């Protein structure tokens, strides 16, 4: 409903976006009838909710193609992009975060902290531009942007054009994730149960892995859920940097063209995915921490 209200606030009638400047009044009236913007708001709203319940996202005002298949197309770029970026971020951030917490007073522990501090201050798009400059413009290793028209049918081409975007997303997520992993690890290190395990003769690394991992993972996983949702919705910037035909660029285009069905469709699908991710994160937390089971979830 919030979605619907916000979209109707966009100034300008979508019918105007469809037609050129020189359209006659009759043409405008016909276009308004076609997109339904001549109907009262309440009718538009009930229509919208009814179709949503049947997963009918309508057809685009501008290109006149159904919204749902188009979203599916776009997801084939955005999903691999965020998922691989996210996995790579975990691979980078978790070990580095643990090391930087355990080895606070060594030079590499400090370096990791400084670099992550730098990482959260860098805007995604600038990092992207820098990587393009280094790897595409100067070294010519990867393409600077774009995606093959045939999509994944041209697998090699599609995969190479996603390498730099994935690395960019991964570095940005890793920088903020690392801080959470580090502080979770610090909490574990300071805990009584770890001291007890050590006193009972367990080795430092063994105690950390056996007792610390499970305890430290709980707060980190809720952050992981938020980060995944953010990077999924935030893909709009990365897709612009690398000129990728993903969900984010669809949203950006749809907003500028006042293409309500497209905007609604993208936001609806992303909201659904974000809720699913949140739910999954909750579930994993309960699996890891028995204390959370059977307890009403309060955020």
């Amino acid at each position, binding site marked *: 409903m919030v979605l619907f209200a916000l979209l109707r606030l966009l100034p300008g009638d979508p019918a105007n976006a469809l037609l050129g400047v020189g359209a006659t009044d009759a043409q405008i009236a016909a276009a308004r009838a076609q997109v339904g913007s001549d109907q009262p708001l309440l009718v538009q709203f009930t229509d919208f909710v009814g179709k949503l319940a049947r997963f009918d996202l309508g057809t685009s005002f501008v290109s006149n193609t159904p919204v749902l298949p188009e979203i599916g197309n776009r997801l084939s770029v955005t999903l691999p992009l965020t998922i691989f970026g996210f996995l790579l971020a975990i691979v980078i951030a978790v070990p580095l975060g643990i090391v930087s917490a355990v080895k606070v007073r060594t030079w590499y522990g400090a370096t990791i902290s400084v670099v992550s501090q730098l990482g959260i201050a860098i805007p995604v798009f600038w990092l992207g*531009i820098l990587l393009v400059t280094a790897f595409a413009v100067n070294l010519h290793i990867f393409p600077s942007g774009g995606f093959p028209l045939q999509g994944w049918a041209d697998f090699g081409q599609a995969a190479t054009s996603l390498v730099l975007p994935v690395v960019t997303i991964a570095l940005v997520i890793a920088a903020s994730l690392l801080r959470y992993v580090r502080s979770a690890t610090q909490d574990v290190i300071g805990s009584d149960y770890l001291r007890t395990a050590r006193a009972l003769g367990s080795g430092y690394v063994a105690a950390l892995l056996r007792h610390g991992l499970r305890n430290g993972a709980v707060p980190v996983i809720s952050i992981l859920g938020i980060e995944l*949702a953010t990077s999924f919705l935030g893909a709009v910037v990365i897709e612009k940097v690398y000129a990728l035909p993903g969900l984010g660029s669809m*949203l950006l285009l749809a907003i500028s063209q006042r293409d309500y069905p497209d905007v609604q469709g993208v936001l609806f699908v992303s909201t659904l995915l974000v809720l699913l991710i949140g739910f999954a994160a909750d579930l994993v937390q309960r699996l890891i921490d028995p204390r959370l089971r059977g307890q009403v979830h309060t955020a």
Partner: protein
Amino acid sequence: MTALAETAVAPARRGSWTLWAGIVLVGIHVLVALLTLVWTPYDPTALVGHRLEGPSLLHWAGTDRLGRDFFTAIMIGSRIALIVGIGAVAIGAAIGVTLGVLAAFATRLLDDALAAAFDILIAFPTLLIAMLVVAATEASLGSSILALGIALSAVIARLTRIVAKRVLTLDFITAARTAGASWPSIVIEHILPNIWPTLAVNFALQFGIAVIAEASLSYLGLGAPPPNSSWGYLLQAAQGTVYTAPIAAFAPGIALVSLVIGVNLLADGLRDIADPTRRGVV
């Protein structure tokens, strides 16, 4: 035990240098921003050189694709970024603190409803909310600031609610209530002074987030048009000329990162002052 003693000493040292580094970095940007009000090396709109000149003594960061001085544009970017950060945090704080305190005081039902609303809003990235709000108005500096303020308010509201609730359970609140204090006076005299340090640290962090988000909006073409254009706009323009004028793709980014790191360090330093028991916690 030696390890414990060391961690007790380390944060104080770390706190002082982060605070000073933060003050220096932010201070430079504030000075530059103030300077642009009275003087810039060149007129920001005048064509003062050839197109896409490299850095030289005359043009420290070269010229843009129309021949305008690029260093001037970066200096003005400092002013824009500070206006955006301060404006967005002010709006976010006004809405967020009000709603947060309201939720903390409200009945169970209203509190739950507000808390759920904050959580839903937080699940959406600042940038996405701002994109929609900007699209609903028009691209200008004012609408960007408003959009970011609204987007930040949910985070601030949630934090305010949590810390205010914590303070509300304390004995001196019960004492004040018993003494017959009205709830507005409890908020002003007891709640706000106690939650202020935590909020101030968070405002500094939100400032950095707002500056990055505005740059991203400008980069996407949804930001303020020139002459109010930010570093994000400069970078977007520079991406097209990255082959011929690489410096333009670096300089605004460095300016942006230095400001954001500055406020983050400042926040770290402030946090260590506000709460010496908290160390290295994000």
